């Protein structure tokens, strides 16, 4: 069975669910809006212009996670997975198509979001953003797209493993909002390699942890890859 038709099918499934399209819009709106607000209130000793511009990603990622999770969890409602796997019995290929269909739109929206954040952030910050170089700006935009994509994939993989969007979101959201905020400031600890902390180094003008921006995204990618592999294992092994 060829991959392209399966991918086409999965793409139709994503664009025909309003909640998923809405989730993608939310990624853009939430990230850009919160970044703009952060720019308005941007005083303090440890001000970092790039972090300020992409501050909203911490919140926009919730929408990306919800998107990745919902795209997969819709298969675990009312026997939908059976219909999907009866159409595409090659389960590994099916799940790969699902992952690509989740990743591609998040990457596209994430890149646009990054661009919007950069433009809005520069406008809001004014002179305070003068120190930002083009390469830093580009790093932030690309990082925004890649980071959000990786988080959506992390959620997608975890949902396939747990077979439930609710379970996934009730693990990931508290994790991102609480655990990561609480221990996230403790640099030099295990917090540096948490999926969100590691990936968000890409939004720092200067970093003091062991991971640089690209290495940090690499660590996040490892987390996502692990979640996807676990999800694929579950889809392949378990009865539908």
């Amino acid at each position, binding site marked *: *069975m060829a991959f392209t038709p399966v991918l086409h099918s999965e793409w139709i499934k994503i664009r025909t669910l309003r909640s998923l399209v809405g989730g993608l819009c939310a990624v853009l709106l939430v990230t850009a809006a919160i970044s703009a607000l952060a720019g308005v209130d941007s005083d303090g000793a440890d001000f970092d212009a790039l972090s300020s511009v992409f501050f909203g990603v911490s919140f926009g990622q919730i929408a990306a996670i919800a998107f990745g999770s919902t795209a997969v969890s819709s298969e675990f409602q009312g026997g939908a997975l059976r219909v999907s796997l009866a*159409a595409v019995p090659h389960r590994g290929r099916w799940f790969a198509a699902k992952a690509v269909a989740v990743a591609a739109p998040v990457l596209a929206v994430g890149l646009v979001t990054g661009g919007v954040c950069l433009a809005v952030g520069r406008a809001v910050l004014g002179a305070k953003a003068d120190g930002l170089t083009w390469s830093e700006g580009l790093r932030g935009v690309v990082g925004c797209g890649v980071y959000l994509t990786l988080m959506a994939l992390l959620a997608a993989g975890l949902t396939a493993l747990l077979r439930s969007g609710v379970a996934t979101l009730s693990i990931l959201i508290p994790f991102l909002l609480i655990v990561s905020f609480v221990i996230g400031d403790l640099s030099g600890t295990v917090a540096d390699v948490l999926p969100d902390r590691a990936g968000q180094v890409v939004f720092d003008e200067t970093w003091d942890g062991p991971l640089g921006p690209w290495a940090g995204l690499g660590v996040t990618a490892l987390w996502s890859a692990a979640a996807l592999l676990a999800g694929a294992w579950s889809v392949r092994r378990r009865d539908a």
Partner: protein
Amino acid sequence: MTSIDVQDLTKEYGTRRAVDALTFSVRPGRVTGFLGPNGAGKSTTMRLVLGLDRPTSGTATLAGRPYATLTEPLRHVGALLDAQAAHGSRTARDHLRALAASNRIPRGRVDEVLEETGLASVARRRVKTYSLGMRQRLGIAAALLGDPEIVLLDEPSNGLDPEGIIWIRQLLRRLAAEGRTVLVSSHLMNETASFADHLVVLGRGRLLADTPMREFIHARVQPRVRVRTSDPTALKHILAQHGHDAAEHEDGHWTVRHARVDDIGLLASASGVPLLELAAEEGTLEQAYLDLTATETEFTAPSQEA
């Protein structure tokens, strides 16, 4: 040949055997009714045939191949397992389009099956607004999408209105007449009797019967004759004289077991007993099925015979 071949198929969930060493074939050109009480293993068997569940042992093949090895399987096998499978927030048309795309089925087929199942006018409505009967039709539309030679339907008449039940009956007959292999599960006897040519009966995961429906009924239900007379005493007398086992019913008619109309008619005529009514009572699938399950040792329910 486009048969479904199930060979020594077993599926265990923990310690429970849902399907127990099942062997049978479903042949093309006829409707095979798949019968058994709830929990007998019908749906599990269908999932095993479709490669959705992994068998503990044994094999299931379609046209000689395991389902998982089929390329673009919807073009060969169509299945309805669960009417709730379509996502409520998607329209019927989008649901079918996504399925069609995965197997490179032309888009035109989507509109064709929507038309065929009577959903064309509501195809752009979201599935959550559908009644159970409409969802059932959508599931059947999905099964027919790839114009498959093999069709498996799990309880297709569930939730259908009387018109829908007649429609599904005609559809099943037509699919079989076109030479397709049709397996339809049900726990409704009268419904199954109206469309099946052949029966596969399960009980607690085991095969109880695999026979043509007529034979199944004839082998299990003795023919009976229904008689009504204006002279009960005389009738009773001559029937007893000739060793017939007759029972009188409250509304005044009699049933004579193990008899044929020819015998009773001639007997009454020769004895001058006036007959108001004389009819052969065909055994029903329901009677035959109850007889089968009553005699099976696995079933602890008491005999249904009066």
